[in-house]
């Protein structure tokens, strides 16, 4: 009797699943091949013919492996993104918003306004907020790495607060541009650049500084598909 498990294992090659799940799949396919073989022998085929018949049911092992991986992929990737990107990202957004909100109460230290431009516009810096961002970035990157996130997921999870801060102004920019050109005959490039700098670039840099040690460390998690389907 052929070793059906070994045939299935060699045919499929390594699967990107946990060992238990991989063994289950191999055992299930081996059972199927053995049933095909036994049926053929019972119907009077020689062992060689029965073996050939059983193997023909799995002629394309590559396709079988791809299909099995694909069947597992959708949910696995969704779970992976939730764990490594959206949850740590939500954490960094909530923490940075809370700190910023605390600094906006009347008794909090006033923000430092640098490079004032046209009376009210300038580079607004909430120093205490900026100082808190490396810690928040470190928390987000650590969480993402701990959940198995790769460099891309860690960087995205850490960057979400800064992206959120500048995303809305960027969307509104065309309307602001039209308004300023029509009503004030001016091009709002400098205010917009200051806004991007103060709420996007500088906070992003602060977040990344804190996250950097967790970018360098080796990935402790696994490939997105490395769980059972």
């Amino acid at each position, binding site marked *: 009797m052929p070793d059906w498990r070994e045939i299935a294992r060699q045919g499929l090659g390594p699967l990107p699943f946990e060992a238990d799940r991989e063994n289950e799949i191999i055992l299930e*396919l081996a*059972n*199927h091949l053995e*049933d095909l073989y036994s049926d053929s022998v019972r119907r009077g085929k020689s062992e060689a013919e029965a073996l050939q018949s059983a193997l023909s*049911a*799995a002629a394309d092992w590559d*396709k079988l492996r791809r*299909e099995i991986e*694909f*069947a597992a992929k959708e949910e696995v990737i969704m779970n992976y993104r939730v764990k490594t990107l959206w949850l740590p990202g939500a954490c960094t957004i909530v923490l940075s918003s809370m700190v910023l909100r605390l600094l906006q109460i009347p008794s909090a230290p006033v923000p430092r306004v640098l490079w004032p431009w046209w009376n009210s516009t300038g580079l607004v810096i909430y120093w205490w907020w900026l100082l808190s961002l490396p810690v928040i970035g470190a928390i987000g990157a650590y969480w993402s790495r701990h959940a198995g996130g790769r460099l891309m997921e860690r960087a995205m999870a850490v960057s979400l607060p800064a992206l959120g801060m500048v995303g809305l102004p960027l969307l509104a920019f065309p309307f602001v541009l039209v308004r300023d050109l029509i009503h004030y005959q001016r091009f709002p490039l400098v205010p917009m650049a200051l806004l991007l700098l103060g709420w996007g670039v500088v906070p992003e840099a602060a977040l990344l500084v804190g996250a950097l040690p967790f970018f360098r460390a080796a990935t402790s998690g696994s490939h997105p598909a490395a769980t059972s389907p």
Partner: protein
Amino acid sequence: MKECETNIGNQIKRGSAELAILSVLAEGPLHGYEISKRIERQTQGALRFNLASLYPLLYRMERRGWLKAAWEEPAGGRRRRYYRLEEEGKRRLVPLREEWRQLFQALDSLAGVSHA
């Protein structure tokens, strides 16, 4: 155009395979090999599964909650993974049967293609 035809073909194949699996499992739990043999027998060999067409689909249906699989070892037999129809699968089977009935009716009225 070619890609469109391929997609339609794949969807029909997958849809008919899902209907076939849900239908045989509605009669009781079966393991993978029994599922393929039962379908082949009941369709007089018109529908045949190989490993690549059966197991990925079973795993996909299991993931969607249509089926539940469990390892069992009958007395004197080998350890097998049996598939059972879940409530979600039963709910899915009803509209699936209706969709295919309507498709065959439509083809019948269009081209005289009648189902058995």
